[in-house]
């Protein structure tokens, strides 16, 4: 029996960098799950670029809570897909984020990404639905980045999993 839910790759930072890449992603799974635990040298949002596309093909809708109230916001026509509006990662307590990228190899649909993120330092959590609407193509690389170019902290971990459906 082949495994259904497999680890593809893990990166643990031993130097602070502003961009983390997963490239040459195997095209043999149905869905991808990206699990991240990390922080940033300065408060920053976390986001993605796919297949090196830095044009305005990204948009996202957020749902968030900050311990006092729930809210919702969105970004349209962005050059990357931010996965939280207010939740940021900081140099304090590490935050977590999990993103699901379904049917990432198909060449007929845009890609929708479901994410959850939390910010333990500033006290916020959120969920988001993001859209990458480049002319449909298989997703083969992910650039994990910060919203303001600041660096991820040493010790931040990024693990990419593949889920294989029958």
């Amino acid at each position, binding site marked *: 029996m082949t495994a259904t839910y497999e680890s593809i790759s893990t990166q643990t930072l031993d130097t602070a960098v502003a961009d983390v890449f997963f490239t040459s992603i195997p095209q043999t799974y149905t869905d991808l799950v990206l699990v991240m635990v990390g922080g940033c040298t300065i408060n920053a949002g976390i986001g993605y670029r796919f297949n090196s596309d830095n044009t305005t093909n990204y948009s996202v*809708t957020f749902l968030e809570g900050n311990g006092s109230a729930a809210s*919702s916001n969105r970004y349209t026509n962005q050059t990357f897909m931010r996965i939280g509006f207010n939740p940021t990662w900081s140099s304090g307590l590490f935050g977590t984020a999990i993103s699901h990228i379904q049917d990432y190899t198909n060449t007929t649909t845009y890609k929708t990404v479901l994410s959850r993120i939390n910010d333990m330092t500033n006290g916020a959590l959120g*969920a988001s639905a993001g859209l990458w609407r480049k002319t449909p193509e298989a997703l083969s690389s992910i650039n994990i980045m910060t919203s303001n170019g600041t660096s991820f902290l040493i010790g931040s971990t990024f693990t990419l999993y593949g889920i294989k459906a029958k």
Partner: protein
Amino acid sequence: MRSNGGLIGAKKIPNTSAASGLWSTQDVQREVGAGNWITAADFESITTITVGVSGSASETFSSIPQTYKHLQLRWMSRSSGGAYNPIFRFNEDTGNNYSWHYIDGNGTSATSGGGGTQNSILIAGIGGTASTFAVGIMDILDYTNTNKFKTVRILQGADYNGSGAVDLWSGSWQSSTAITSIYCGFSSAQYSKYALYGIKG
């Protein structure tokens, strides 16, 4: 545990002791460690439904194996017409045995609501914008238990570059019957997909 290449019968991988024709514990450990054998998984694909060119009014997973602890349903769906609210039912139960609650973000505000004494678990609307699919994940916990009502949780959303929503949903089926089928009332366009997974406990 099975071989990755149908090699369990003839001892082809470990060359060093092939003459014996028997697998030793050390042989197996070595081959698993080398990735030539893969151990049975705790997260397994049960079945996947892909909607064809004609679209589909609903999909049903039936004869669900009772050998897992939890189920996870992952979908990617686009409406074949206008926006609508999909529903779920279990074991073909159309009685008023369901309830649900949600928190929703539509890009402008967050709202919460719910429904009690319902004939299905109804979730947030899905649109029909070309090429753009809503995605969702539903966890069905302890689905074979015959002493508990069944509770599910859902994360789902869609973004249309200027509209859309993301939601957290919970649902209850007030039945202590083991779940053997799941009805997905989605009016789905081509390329929509529904994948059911089992998680061992």
